[in-house]
């Protein structure tokens, strides 16, 4: 029954608009709030991401368990672990230096931030650099570390899905608990006033 496999304009605009609306309301258009995650003073990025991951994973599991969605009906990224590791390191470095990730730079730009536009130009340049280097050598590196058995923890390592969901919920509780502990002993989460006033406006504690 599900998914509808809709690839049209309306679902793109609706899903995107809701995504952008939630990200901005979470504070993720602000580079000072986003990078505060790496300074461990504001754990909003991890709290929001882990909550969303758990909600969606439980929802997908529930839909399958109810017989509303067949197995393997949604896209699962292929387990090219070397590519994921190297790419993750580059995106993490770019996030720490530039203040955004690709998606949040769109949110930053449309909350008025011109530095986010510069980040987006950099994003296109990075794609050009990659395309220029692309060839058999980079393809071989990217194909390294593939788990042949499968792409999910269940298929790749035989960990039951309910175990994975339980681990994720435990990780979510840990992120909120330890994250809040770090927030209490530092300057604390970046408020909307501080975010709007821009990086550097916060009074250090």
């Amino acid at each position, binding site marked *: 029954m599900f998914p509808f496999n809709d690839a049209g304009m309306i679902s793109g605009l609706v899903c995107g608009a809701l995504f952008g609306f939630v990200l901005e309301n979470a504070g993720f258009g602000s580079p000072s709030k986003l990078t505060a995650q790496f300074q461990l003073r504001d754990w909003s990025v991890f709290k929001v991401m882990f909550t969303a991951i758990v909600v969606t994973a439980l929802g997908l599991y529930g839909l399958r368990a109810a017989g509303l969605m067949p197995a393997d009906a949604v896209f699962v990224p292929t387990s090219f672990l070397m590519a994921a590791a190297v790419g*993750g390191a580059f995106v993490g470095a770019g996030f*720490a230096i530039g203040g955004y990730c690709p998606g949040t730079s769109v949110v930053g730009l449309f909350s008025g931030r011109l530095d986010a536009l510069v980040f987006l130009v950099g994003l296109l340049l990075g794609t050009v650099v990659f395309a220029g280097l692309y*060839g058999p050598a980079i393809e071989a590196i990217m194909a390294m570390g593939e788990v042949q058995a499968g792409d999910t923890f269940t298929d790749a390592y035989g960990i039951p*899905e309910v175990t994975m969901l339980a681990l994720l919920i435990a990780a979510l509780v840990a992120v909120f608990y330890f994250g809040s502990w770090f927030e209490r002993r530092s300057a604390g989460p970046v408020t909307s006033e501080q975010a709007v006033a821009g990086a550097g406006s916060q009074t250090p504690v």
Partner: protein
Amino acid sequence: MLISTEFSARKVRPFWSPLVAGLALGLVLLLTFVLTGHGLGATGASTRMTAWLGLAVAPAATQANSYLGPLVEGGNPLASWISWQVIGVAIGALVAAFFGGRFRIQLDGARSVGAPRRLVAALGGGLLAGFGARVAAGCTSGLGLSGAATLAVAAFVFLGLFFATGLIVSRLVKGV
């Protein structure tokens, strides 16, 4: 706060709590999976934008390129669901920022590190992220968030290295 009244008549409203924002984001992501069979993303669109610009500026080189070439074979590379989704992100963010009193034209980070440094950092950071997202075939949204929700191994590897590297690099370089 004093800061909020200095800039605009519209009151700056607080951000949603991380729990509320996370629940909302999870429901939006679940809706996306149900409607389309895949998750949310971003760099799918920026890659297509690169191919589109390449076709306009250097058509022969773009068509000959082994990465961008296949994207421009079937006509307009921007004609894709992900392009509409990113336009949607822009609209949603604009609406949220406006009604939250949080829309400000600014070079965020100019005050903390100075405008020239902020511009270089934003460009360099974007370049690194753009390159990395092509290596991983996804970014924080497309691979990290959407992939993790499908319990994909690659997504958690991506998130682990993303966080570890960010933690280290943010201590070495101040870009915001």
